[in-house]
């Protein structure tokens, strides 16, 4: 077999491997990849998310085992030092020599560091690798303890703005220094830059334009910047993001032709001047240009894969450099020719200073074609404008309606339907997916919904900018096939809960902000926030303490709010079994805090009338006495009710209390679309009322009968039989699978009974999935459930041990007073809230 060596394991180097594997290229080639960094390829586009909660693993482009699994040899931390294009060999810094038949140079670029006096000082960084970010983070942490928390970012381009956001996320005061007279000079015009600048400044990030840095002041460490106009800025950190330079030194040394200003020269097959040597990504110079975006890099990788597998795909002569992204919370997009203004072109500009929106489109003077444009503050028209531009579609009579909307209309109506686009229209530039490909995947039956399409075509998995269009295409195509388009969570997410669940899981999204940014719009509401909180809890088993602001009010305060704004407290009493000592402790605590007590329907004790600031004090004492949270406030497992069973009862067939305790402890803390209740009865007299529960277990001759989908409430439902005469172990296995299946697929706030009604095929279908493993997912469901069980933590214990979390249990921020509006009146030797008028 012939041998391909890939130098560089960045995004484009990885994409080459992925595409080669997908095309079956590994059947005819051995592949060895050299990466200088210690970790396999990661997502540099979303690098700044490293500061907002993502780990290095989260940013990884694939599972680290993938290379080995498909048979690619990956050598990380190994730098290639020499290439001999005559002998077709390379040498690594370990002194090892390798032969190649084809060499792919994907060495990428390095940050350009301008030759300014003082750049060697401590506190000056570049922004490119995870190691750079780690260094920035460490230094930033130290600065936060000192007195100067000012940090400058040199470069107001795309990456510089990302860096500024990252620095701000670290808790420092960010200042952006730009050499040119506007921000993002390659993408924006003056008006757009001004709009963006205003937005950025409103977030307390300084913007300094037209500043040429003369030197960096300070002794050993940076203390400030001095500019050529004699102004200065005090700062303790500088992140340089002033452009990139291609890493062409290997090629240069090997005698491969490079451009005047660097970069390996390639033709439209991505071939360099040396036979068998290709260059792709930011190191390649094609049509006398370097392309610093990921989409052209991916396309280059695809061209080479095609060339090596016997096809003749070429790089197009014009490369689309359109981009759409969110920078420091502001939507920015630029496409085609953003600036041109000559006799053949007419720009149309819309500006709304109050809302911070700037839109510009450039129209050919005959009014026929869209040549390019800029959007700042609101890029919702981007997808359709970009499609009109890239496909050369005819413009409406009044082209201004493209950006300001027609009078009385609902804005930017360009296409009556996305289905009017030609099949060849490229919808996802990053992954090069056409409209035809997306629609075909649905009409040929291989995909039936958005997540299938995303998995099959990889559309939207790059920058994500095409998301709305792909979604529209999927919906419209399904509609044209006569399929109903399903319900959505709320106005902020045009997906149902299951789709959001899949998206969060597949894309490893870790926060609500990130989810709404990538898959939604607006700022969320009381419907989608708790729905996503529940999804995060189900995927990562994070407690309600992690993302406090998206929790339903009760989850946020880990207690149930009652009529007068006081709260009730319910500790867990598994299966209702409690020792006299614990009862005494509970009584003592209730007395001390003057709480109203009542036994609940779930066989535990509810204590009412606690003021917000008393909650942690009460819980501290309860936890010391051996109690833990009962999750009575959450959409989570409540209780598993039991009868005394064969241990005491003369009719009992099995130990219902022991089994109920085991089940309650097993599923405690697990969040779900709605509350879950369980029951275990020791015989068919059914004293535990197990058939009124989401899962009910009843002892019979020869084992347990398992019922699912019951509830009390406004529409009582008896649970339906799922399996008969099974042993404890099988019963647990089935409940694991059933609950996980329900958690993954139910709509928000849907109890198991309603879910069961909606599932096509009903109980028989669920039995096929859960008992007979028809979908082959049983093992995964069990594994995911076990993961949740293993990571259980009492969230009240977590809360009282962390002073930061405790802040939320104060009624007033600026006073230690309690709420004097809460009034209780006496009732039957206890107290109750003053009745509502």
């Amino acid at each position, binding site marked *: 077999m012939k041998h391909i060596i890939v130098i560089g394991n960045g995004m484009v180097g990885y994409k080459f491997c992925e595409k080669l594997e997908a095309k079956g290229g590994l059947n005819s080639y051995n592949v060895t990849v050299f990466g200088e960094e210690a970790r396999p390829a990661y997502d540099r586009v979303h690098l700044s998310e490293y500061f907002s909660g993502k780990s290095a693993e989260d940013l990884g482009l694939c599972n680290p085992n993938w290379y080995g699994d498909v048979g690619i040899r990956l050598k990380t931390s190994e730098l290639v030092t020499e290439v001999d294009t005559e002998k077709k060999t390379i040498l690594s810094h370990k002194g090892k020599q390798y032969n190649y038949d084809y060499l792919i140079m994907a060495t990428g670029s390095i940050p350009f560091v301008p030759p300014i006096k003082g750049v060697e000082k401590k506190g000056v960084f570049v922004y490119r690798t995870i190691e750079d970010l780690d260094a920035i983070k460490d230094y930033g942490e130290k600065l936060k303890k000192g007195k100067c928390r000012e940090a400058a970012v040199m470069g107001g381009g795309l990456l510089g703005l990302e860096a500024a956001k990252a620095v701000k996320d670290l808790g420092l005061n960010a200042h952006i220094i730009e050499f040119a007279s506007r921000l993002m000079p390659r993408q924006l015009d003056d008006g757009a830059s001004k709009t963006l600048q205003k937005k950025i400044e409103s977030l307390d990030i300084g913007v300094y334009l037209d500043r040429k840095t003369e030197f960096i002041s300070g002794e050993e460490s940076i203390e400030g910047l001095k500019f050529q106009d004699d102004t200065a800025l005090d700062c303790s950190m500088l992140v340089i993001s002033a452009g990139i330079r291609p890493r062409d030194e290997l090629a240069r040394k090997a005698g491969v032709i490079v451009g005047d200003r660097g970069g390996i020269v390639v033709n439209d097959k991505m071939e360099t001047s040396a036979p068998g040597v290709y260059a792709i990504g930011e190191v390649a110079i094609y049509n006398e240009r370097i392309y610093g975006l990921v989409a052209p890099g991916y396309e280059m990788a695809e061209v080479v894969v095609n060339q090596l597998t016997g096809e003749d795909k070429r790089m197009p002569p014009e490369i689309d450099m359109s981009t759409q992204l969110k920078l420091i919370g502001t939507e920015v997009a630029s496409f085609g020719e953003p600036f041109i203004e000559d006799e053949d072109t007419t720009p149309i500009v819309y500006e709304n200073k109050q809302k911070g929106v700037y839109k510009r489109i450039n129209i050919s003077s005959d009014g026929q074609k869209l040549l390019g444009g800029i959007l700042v503050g609101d890029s919702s028209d981007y997808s359709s404008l970009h499609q009109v531009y890239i496909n050369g579609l005819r413009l409406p009579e009044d082209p201004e309606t493209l950006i300001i909307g027609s009078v009385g209309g609902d804005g930017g109506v360009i296409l009556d339907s996305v289905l009017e686009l030609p099949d060849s229209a490229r919808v996802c530039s990053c992954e090069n997916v056409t409209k035809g490909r997306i629609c075909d995947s649905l009409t040929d039956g291989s995909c039936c919904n958005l997540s299938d399409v995303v998995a099959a075509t990889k559309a939207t998995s790059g920058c994500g900018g095409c998301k709305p269009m792909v979604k529209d295409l999927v919906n419209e195509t399904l509609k044209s096939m006569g399929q109903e388009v399903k319900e959505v969570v709320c106005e902020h997410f045009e997906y149902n809960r299951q789709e959001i669940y899949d998206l969060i899981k597949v894309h490893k999204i870790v926060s609500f902000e990130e989810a709404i940014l990538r898959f939604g719009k607006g700022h969320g509401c009381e419907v989608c926030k708790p729905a996503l909180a529940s999804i995060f809890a189900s995927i990562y088993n994070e407690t309600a303490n992690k993302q*406090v602001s998206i929790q339903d009010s009760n989850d946020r305060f880990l207690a149930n709010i009652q009529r007068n704004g006081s709260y009730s407290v319910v500790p867990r009493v598994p299966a209702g079994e409690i020792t006299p000592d614990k009862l005494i402790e509970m009584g003592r605590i209730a007395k001390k805090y003057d709480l109203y007590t009542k036994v609940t329907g779930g066989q535990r004790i509810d204590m009412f009338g606690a003021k917000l600031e008393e909650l942690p004090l009460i819980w501290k004492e309860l936890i010391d006495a051996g109690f833990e949270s009962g999750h009575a406030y959450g959409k989570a497992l409540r209780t598993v009710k039991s009868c005394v069973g064969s241990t005491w009862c003369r009719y009992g067939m099995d130990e219902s209390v022991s089994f109920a305790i085991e089940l309650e402890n097993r599923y405690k803390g697990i969040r779900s679309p709605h509350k879950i209740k369980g029951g275990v009865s020791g015989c068919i007299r059914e004293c535990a009322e197990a058939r009124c529960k989401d899962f009910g277990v009843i002892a019979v001759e020869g084992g347990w009968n398992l019922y699912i989908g019951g509830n009390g409430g406004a529409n009582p439902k008896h649970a339906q039989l799922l399996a008969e005469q099974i042993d404890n172990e099988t019963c647990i296995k089935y409940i694991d699978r059933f609950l996980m299946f329900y958690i993954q697929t139910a709509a928000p706030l849907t109890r198991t009974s309603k879910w069961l009604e909606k599932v096509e095929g009903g109980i028989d279908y669920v039995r096929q999935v859960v008992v007979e493993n028809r979908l082959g997912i049983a093992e995964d469901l069990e594994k995911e459930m076990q993961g949740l069980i293993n990571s259980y933590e009492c969230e009240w214990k977590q809360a009282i041990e962390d002073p930061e979390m405790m802040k939320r249990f104060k009624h*007033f921020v600026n006073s230690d007073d309690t709420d004097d509006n809460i009034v209780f009146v006496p009732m039957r030797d206890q107290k109750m809230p003053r009745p509502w008028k």
Partner: protein
Amino acid sequence: MQDLLNEYQTIGVDKVKVWVKAGTVDDFPTNGGACIKYKKKQIAVFNFTTMSRWYACQNLCPHKMEMVISRGMIGDKDQIPKVACPLHKKTFSLENGTNMEGEDYKLATYPVRIADGAVFVGFSE
């Protein structure tokens, strides 16, 4: 009860006589609210981080007269920032306090100013 409600009247920025320091920015949760006390008044202050804006309104729920609005969840409806009362999920515009389901209940709103990392709420007295 009506007396209590009358305590709270919307104050426009032009009518502010005193700016009361409510605490530091860090005292308030991100994308959430907390309550402050000024004289006898309870005011809910919201740090709407994703919108980069701050809002203040009465903490008193105008429906059942309980001091709970600050514990409500915030969000937006058609880009208008809003808060949902934790008791019955009635939602109110944070811009002008009107009920967004079209009911008659209304919250009084107060201007907020941020300076040097501190949060100030404006009152007319």
